């Protein structure tokens, strides 16, 4: 008899399942609450991974920044279209001398916990970022600042050891956002973030989603959206399906191979614009023959970047300049200063200098477009007479290996979150950073000097010239061969308007609305 019952139970279960599926209402899966006029006032964004934390001081990844960027604000900000620096929490600033920055703050702003935003809060935040005990991953942003003084309630004075050119870019960085000192002292702002921004933290289910609600007491006009959700959807193809069915309304950083599918969805709009990211083929400058200019030149002539960019479905552009068109310090002249594709010349140089048949290994991380780059470059370099092998590694292992200099040639990219040329050339190519972020181990005193000057000059025009000069030097010296300058992308439901992705890939939901 027991078995008969089981059979009946199973039949019952199957019927239930079919009834549940059959009764479903097609439109019920569309999310988004509605406010006045029936327009949805909620937005769900899907990202491939979860935020590491919600404290701008203690994180350094773009996923976390996407969330913290809506909750916290910085003293200065960059216009998403022009990238011009504008005051945000600051009202104005002056530099009585090259080492002093007097910043006047906006009055009457409060943090989400009700405590006032003032010079003390700025001092507290910056001191936390600089505190070695706290081990803030972007401590280097404020490293040149020697002291932070509170002049009065709404005036803060920053003093540097030597002039710091990219100061405003650094103060606009998401990781230099101002936090509520009370909230940070009493609790963990990584879990319960408290800022001054247009959205207030509501809930974080780790690994699944973060929800924020509108800050009704915002110091500017409150945002249009009432509620925003950051949902973790690890698989891009799933995220695209969700965008198609309306379960999410916004995704970004679209992979080039999925672009045709996204563009074919009728209810979705795709935004593409030039970005600050540069991807490159880098040489290990401490190993032979990679440290020989002739070899690097031959490789540079042998690589046809256009053939690679052609495979990106319209994302990415090529230009020989290391500092890209959207980065401060770019000068048009630089774009033709490198070594354009010329197979015959490359072959000749390989032969003349006795590099024929030289065996080289391309270290490649198995993510982003690096595998694609490696395969294309492998076949191109084989054609000019080199023997090329690809060594693939998973990201964490790759970073470790590349940092230690255990490679010959590799592919990497730099997103440049401040869009400032000094923030590209200094970490990546200045000899101070050999063993850390200077993966190519490039060491050139003249270049170092120019980069140093670009950092320690406050006059922006002079900085631009120094950066241009340094850029030309690096292009000619070729520790890097540019592969592409990135395109920033977003895809969103047609009901969404007001979204602008800036060249660094950042966006704010403040001006976004749905109709």
């Amino acid at each position, binding site marked *: 008899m027991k078995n008969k019952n089981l059979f009946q139970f199973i039949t019952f279960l199957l019927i239930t399942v079919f009834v549940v599926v059959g009764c479903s209402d097609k439109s019920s899966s569309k999310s988004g609450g509605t406010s006045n006029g029936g327009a949805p006032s909620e937005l769900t964004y899907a990202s491939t991974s979860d935020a590491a*934390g919600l404290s701008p001081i203690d994180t350094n*990844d773009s996923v976390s920044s996407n969330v913290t960027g809506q909750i916290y604000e910085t003293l200065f900000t960059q216009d998403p279209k022009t990238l011009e620096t504008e005051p945000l929490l600051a009202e104005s600033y002056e530099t009585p001398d090259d080492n002093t920055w007097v910043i006047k703050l906006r009055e009457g702003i409060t943090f989400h916990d009700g405590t006032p935003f003032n010079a003390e809060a700025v001092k507290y935040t910056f001191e936390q970022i600089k505190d070695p005990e706290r081990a803030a991953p972007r401590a280097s942003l404020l490293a040149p600042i020697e002291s932070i003084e509170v002049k009065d309630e709404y005036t803060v004075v920053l003093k540097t050891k030597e002039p710091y050119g990219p100061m405003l870019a650094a103060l606009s960085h998401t990781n230099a956002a101002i936090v509520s000192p009370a909230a940070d002292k009493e609790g963990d702002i990584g879990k319960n973030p408290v800022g001054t921004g247009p959205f207030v933290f509501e809930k974080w*289910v780790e690994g699944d989603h973060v929800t924020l609600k509108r800050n009704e007491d915002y110091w500017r006009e409150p945002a249009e959206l009432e509620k925003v959700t950051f949902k973790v959807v690890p698989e891009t193809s799933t995220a695209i*399906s969700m965008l198609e069915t309306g379960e999410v309304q916004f995704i970004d950083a679209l992979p080039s191979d999925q672009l045709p599918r996204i563009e074919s969805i009728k209810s979705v709009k795709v935004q593409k614009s030039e970005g600050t990211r540069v991807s490159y083929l880098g040489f290990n400058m401490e190993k032979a023959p990679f440290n020989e200019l002739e070899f690097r030149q031959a490789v540079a002539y042998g690589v046809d970047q256009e053939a690679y960019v052609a495979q990106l479905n319209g994302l990415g552009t090529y230009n020989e300049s290391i500092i890209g068109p959207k980065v401060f310090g770019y000068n048009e002249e630089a774009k033709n200063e490198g070594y354009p594709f010329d197979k015959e010349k490359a072959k000749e140089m390989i032969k003349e200098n006795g590099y024929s048949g030289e065996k080289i290994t391309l270290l490649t991380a198995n993510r982003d477009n690096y595998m694609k780059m490696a395969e294309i470059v492998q076949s191109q370099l084989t054609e000019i007479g080199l023997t090329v092998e690809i060594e693939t590694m998973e990201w964490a292992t790759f970073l470790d290996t590349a940092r230690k200099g255990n490679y010959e040639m590799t592919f990497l990219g730099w997103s440049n979150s401040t869009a400032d040329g000094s923030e590209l050339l200094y970490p990546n190519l200045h000899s101070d950073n050999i063993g850390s972020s200077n993966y190519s181990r490039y060491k050139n005193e003249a270049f170092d000097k120019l980069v140093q000057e670009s950092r320690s000059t406050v006059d922006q025009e002079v900085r631009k010239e120094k950066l241009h000069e340094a850029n030309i030097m690096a292009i000619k010296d070729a520790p890097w061969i540019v592969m592409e300058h990135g395109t920033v992308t977003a895809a969103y439901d047609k009901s969404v308007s007001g979204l602008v992705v800036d060249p660094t890939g950042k966006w704010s939901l403040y001006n976004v609305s749905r109709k």
Partner: protein
Amino acid sequence: MIGLIVRRFLQLVLLLLGISFLVFMSMHIAPGDPATIIGGPTASASDLEAIRNDLGLDRPVIVQYADYLGGILQGDFGYSFQTGQPVTDAILTRFPNTIKLATASMIVAIIIGIVTGIVSAIKQNSWIDLSSTTFALAGVSIPNFWLGTMLILVFAVNLQWLPVGGLSAPIYTIEGMKELILPAITLGTASAALIARMSRSAMLEVIRSDYIRTAKAKGVKPRSLIWIHALRNAMIPVVTVIGINFGGLLGGTIITEQVFAINGIGRLMIDAIASRDFPIVQGTVLLVAAIFVLVNLIVDLIYAFIDPRITYN
């Protein structure tokens, strides 16, 4: 019976101790530095040093391990390197999702597997048998990734009957059940196929045995012959397959969780491995190992229930 349980628990403790040592050491020996991941490519050498110091990674490995074991004895499995969350919290938020998914998949697998297995054994060599053995072969061979994506495209994107992904609504609501259907089918198919093959061969063996022939000769109706007399004896190997499969599913099902955006143990583990979040990797591996051993113990106990001739003394 009690003796068996006590013995198994002692074995479990030793096993977990061994596993914790192996996982701890292999994570520390493997290339990839948690500090580089946290600091990102921009971090300077001194930034990294500060992070390592903060995480306690600058101490000798053996000291770190002793410290870790000491913590476990007090119920402290450490804190995530990435988020600072206690490991137990990280696991407890995700485990209910994995249990839901594993249970739903197992229900799908058992229903489809046993029914098709039995039917094809009874109707051996008929078209039903042929199609169900084909299903079994296909079910084992189809990669979850592909099956999940296809189900999403058909049932969620085109027909819009079911949501694409996520497990957010409570299980007892209609929305909650709808969310589970596609992932459960995706994950349950391979197990269903295995169970079907196992049920078919076990059933074929049993219905050819003497006692079934005797029962038939005595005039027992075909339906009760199969469902009462034969099924129970055919179940022993099937229960073993179900048990092992269920243990595996509870250990997290990386691909299905990934495709359907389900916040479960499998994804927690794979993300932790990628970001070298040692405490989370250690915690999840220990959990998975413990579950596997416990499920096997339960399977052993079920044997005695199904076949009273089996005793544990």
